[in-house]
């Protein structure tokens, strides 16, 4: 079986889908954050000079994904920042997500940011266990 990458973006009409995988829900959510960064720039180009704490809560994993991505969109927009690494913890029972996002302010000459992400959507929304791993994905509006 071909090895699947922990995060990826996929084509969707005028917009882009983001997908993260992991052995836990927390890891899949961290990786879908990486996919969100990849919509804007090459995540490898992002240095770690700042970190932001993020928390959201919903017993519904899909709403949790929606809120998590939109929290990241908000932080990226208001801090003019890009994030290249995430530490995520999820209490699956209560649906509480606590995370830290690490990154740096946008530097246009180095990051060549392609597009701003406007927000996560319900389209293509899926948070599920597949085999032994978790997958979290949806389409983001750009």
């Amino acid at each position, binding site marked *: 079986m071909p090895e699947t990458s922990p995060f990826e973006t996929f084509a969707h*009409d005028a917009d882009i889908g983001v997908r993260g995988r992991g052995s836990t829900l927390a890891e899949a959510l961290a990786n879908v954050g990486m996919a969100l960064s990849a919509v804007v720039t090459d995540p490898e180009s992002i240095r770690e000079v700042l970190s932001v704490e993020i928390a959201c809560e919903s017993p519904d994993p899909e709403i949790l994904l929606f809120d998590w991505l939109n929290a990241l969109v908000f932080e990226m927009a208001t801090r003019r920042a890009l994030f290249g690494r995430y530490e995520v913890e999820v209490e699956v029972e209560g649906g509480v997500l606590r995370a830290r996002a690490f990154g740096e302010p946008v530097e*246009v000459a180095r990051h060549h940011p392609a597009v701003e992400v406007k927000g*996560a959507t319900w389209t293509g929304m899926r948070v599920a266990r597949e085999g032994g791993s978790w997958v979290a994905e949806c389409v983001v509006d750009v």
Partner: protein
Amino acid sequence: MDLSLLRRRSEFEWAIEPRGKMRVPGLLFASEALVRAMDAKVYEQVTNVAALPGIRTASMAMPDAHWGYGFAVGGVAAFDPDEGVVSAGGVGFDISCGVRCLRTRLTRADLEPKKKDLADALFRAIPAGVGSRGRIRLSGEEMDRMLRGGARWAVEKGFGERGDLERIEEGGQMRDARPEAVSDRARARMRDEVGTLGSGNHYLEVQEVKEVHDEAAAQAFGLSAGDVVLSIHCGSRGFGHQIGTEALREMVDAGRKHGIDLPDRELACAPVRSKEGEHYLGAMRCAINVALANRQVLTHLSREVFGSVLPQSDLTLLYDVSHNTCKVETHEVDGKRREVYVHRKGATRAWGPGHPGLPDRLRAVGQPVLIGGTMGTSSWVLTGTESGMRASFGSACHGAGRSMSRHQALKQWNGKQVVEELERRGILIRSPSLRGVAEEAPGAYKDVSEVVEVTEKAGLARRVAKLLPIVTIKG
């Protein structure tokens, strides 16, 4: 789309007869070729919207309709104030995204020797792309004044001229905006984004009037072949996105609470006369004002640049349209004049001649309908018609939409080649992001000319002039 699902009412009108939960028919305005090329999802989305409570006459799709979140992009639907709903999915994320066109009193010949200087100066002056900030910092009461005042606020602050206002929908100020319905997060996203272009398909473009299709209307609009105009395509920036995102989340619960059965979460809506509906309308109207203020400030920045590079220029507003809105308008419904909540998502308001909401100098001709192309391709000026007022609640197309995903575009083009190729054709591109240019390559979009031709043949609006780009500033 499968033609056997539709009943052809006339050459350019295709009906989806009501079935299942549909309360009204679906109605597609398009040529046979455009209907065949339409995404099958448009059928599903038009049908879903036809099932929403209080919808009147028909759930409509403009000739450029394509898949969208909940409602199709290019979707038009009007709802009864008492029985109907308001839907964030029926407005879209980029609330009041729109196009503004200014005449410059320059000809192509005047511009040509200064073209490069103008491109460079505009690129320096117009904040564009990811991470850019505007000149204005807003907080507290000043933010509230902007949210209530729109372009009128901007003019009072010295950004533009009082005469600009009558050439903007709503006189530049959307009434009944409620700043108290706006979250702190939305405010935070707007603090320093007034007067920024954004990214994606947004642009500021210097264009030439290449063809005139309707001499009388062109004269009334002050356009002649060879004239140079400036067009600005952008919206309410992060503010509108935040309002849209929050509504999408909140309306899922509101719909359930009010017993509205939704086949798609993205159709999220609330009754017009409900706490949630009024909350969204109040915030959405603030976002309309943000977009109007934003385009007004960008106009001011452009005037400064034109004034220094080409002092003989004089930028006057032709018109400013918004193509993602929900507005209260009076239309004929079931033979009577009634107030309805018209949702236009990726559809341009196109009021016909004689409409009392138009300024005196445009009333005889109809409203200018501004249709944006993409970098390197044509844009159009149309005018509203009486037949469009009856057929589509005074609505027309808004653009052409993508023919290819960003992924495909990135595989096919690189930004530098796109810029060089366009420069060979005399079009100067200035953008902070070459990847963004590749994703927005002209070949990744459908041809807008076919869409406007069909819009005219369907009677929704009439072609006045075709515009071609000379300088494009991309976010």
